[in-house]
């Protein structure tokens, strides 16, 4: 749900609307309540304390399924540009509000995060993930997705160790399944098979235009039809309300799960009606 972060792949107009609207905690809470009342019960989102608190305040912890995306890279990259890698790590630490949370990280881990970040990328990502999962885990997610920038960074560098470490970390620490968001689905699936890493949840752009479906649409469609993975389609539509054609394309491929950027109750209502048809 990049809408809560104030970003959009549909248009800058929507991104700005989202940024303005969702800067208010109250607006977020109202919107989540509206979505749930219309039958939308799954939210995919990076760590967002306002979202988490809204779900709790509405008493929807066991009713809305959260698909977390970790770590919240956008904020970290912004901090890294302004404060350097060490400063970014420290700022991330400061956002942990709970004492049990800090204790869970281990004081050693906290003190050494900058050094860890400098030496061991996978450990740094897992510590950042844990910082976010301290709160996100209270919403009982079944799968946690690695942010696409991290997935694709590791994938580009053939970093088998990183994928193996992350998958194992998530399973052991939280007893849930790892998922990977990516903009390079074909390469990721090929590599996971080659490395014998068992991770079946993949979130990637799947749309009737072929956008970000490298090397081409036909190859990606073939991979999906081969089965063995749970595909979650992202970047499905170019409009604020997905069109029938967009959904028809996903249905043809047998895809049941998709993420949509819905930023208003009216759009959600229109979409709910399209889904009913």
């Amino acid at each position: 749900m990049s809408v809560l972060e104030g970003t959009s792949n549909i248009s800058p107009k929507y991104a700005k609307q989202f940024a303005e609207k969702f800067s208010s905690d109250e607006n977020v809470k109202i919107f989540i309540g509206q979505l749930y009342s219309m039958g939308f019960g799954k939210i995919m989102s990076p760590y967002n304390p306002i979202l988490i608190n809204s779900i709790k305040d509405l008493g929807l912890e066991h009713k809305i399924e959260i698909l977390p995306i970790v770590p919240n890279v956008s904020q970290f990259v912004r901090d890294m540009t302004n404060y350097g890698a060490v400063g970014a790590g420290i700022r991330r630490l400061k956002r942990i509000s709970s004492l049990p949370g800090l204790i869970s990280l281990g004081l050693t881990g906290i003190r050494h995060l900058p050094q860890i970040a400098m030496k061991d990328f996978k450990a740094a990502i897992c510590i950042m993930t844990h910082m976010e999962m301290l709160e996100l885990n209270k919403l009982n997610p079944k799968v946690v997705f690695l942010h696409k920038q991290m997935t694709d960074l590791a994938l580009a560098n053939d970093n088998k160790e990183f994928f193996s470490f992350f998958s194992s970390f998530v399973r052991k620490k939280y007893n849930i399944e790892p998922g990977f968001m990516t903009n390079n689905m074909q390469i990721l699936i090929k590599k996971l098979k080659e490395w014998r890493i068992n991770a079946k949840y993949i979130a990637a752009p799947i749309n009737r235009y072929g956008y970000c479906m490298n090397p081409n649409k036909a190859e990606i469609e073939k991979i999906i039809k081969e089965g063995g993975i749970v595909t979650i389609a992202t970047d499905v539509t170019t409009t604020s309300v997905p069109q029938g054609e967009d959904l028809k394309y996903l249905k043809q491929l047998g895809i049941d799960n998709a993420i949509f950027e819905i930023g208003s109750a009216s759009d959600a209502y229109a979409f709910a009606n399209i889904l009913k048809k």
Partner: protein
Amino acid sequence: MRTKRVAIVGLGKMGILHASIVNAMPDAKVVAVSDKQKGLKNQVVSMGIKGAFYESLEDLLARESIDAVIACVPSSVNVYIAKICAARKVSLFLEKPLANNLENALSIYELGKSSGIKNAVGYSVAHIPTFAKAAEIVKDGMIGKIVSTKAKAYLSAVFSKQSTWQYNKRVAGGGCMMAIGSHLLFIMKMILGMPVKVKKAKLNYKYNEVEDEADIEMEYKDGSEAKIDVSWSIHGYQDTLFELEIEGTKGIMIVNNNEILIYSQKKKEQKESAPVLRVHSFQLKENTHFNLGGPGYGAQDLEFIQSLGNVATAKSDWLEGLNIQQILHSIYESSENKGPVAIHEIIP
């Protein structure tokens, strides 16, 4: 085809991005890296970027056989990197802007010309499909003769005093104009051509010694005018927005990172009616082998690496980079002198 051997200088955010994009190419590989901070060596290795580590580029090039260097260092350092690579006839990609000032940019351009090395400067916007398509639409005359343009580059990044090199006038050469304004100027040159005059430039220093906002007016050879608004201190823009609204005699075009909208009516008030044409970025193909870092980056690096060993040149080569630097220089001059400044295009 022989695998191209690439070195990366500067292991910050951009260095890591470029290294990763190169490593994802079938015919290229990062074989060496360089940074003054020795401590970064282990970090990049743990990311999977495996190349021999050197603290200096001179040492790296003395010991390694390299086809191309990609340098992601403060822009004041670019001229030194260019001297080293030109002397060894090693092709060089410099992150944008070409330099921190016009004098250094001219030196870099001359080094490229005299050495004959393949070169590029990192204006990744050249490869964002919507802007390339918009340039085609204007060239084909769909909106007629250009009358006026409103352009903006916005990012929500700076809301207090900062201390890193990007905010140091001597090192970076400037603030928001160097960081995001330069990309916008590149897009404008791609679509509208080279401007001939900066009529007015007002720079606003809200938090730092470099400008945080810029308000500019420019003029073109065909008599059309452009108003430019740049800010990295504006709320509501988590991702950088580049947007042009171009008014022509036959219609209005709005183009940004995500879409192109064409309106048939000429009047501004009527622009709110539905566009006659909408082209979304999803409908345009980007020529890249790997999607990382956002639109344009993969295609940019692929184009540069593929140009090695043949006659092709990068869309954003050092000549283009120099012309953008000319425009930037004129903007800063106009702001200081509080008057119009002519812009002279460098043509080889």
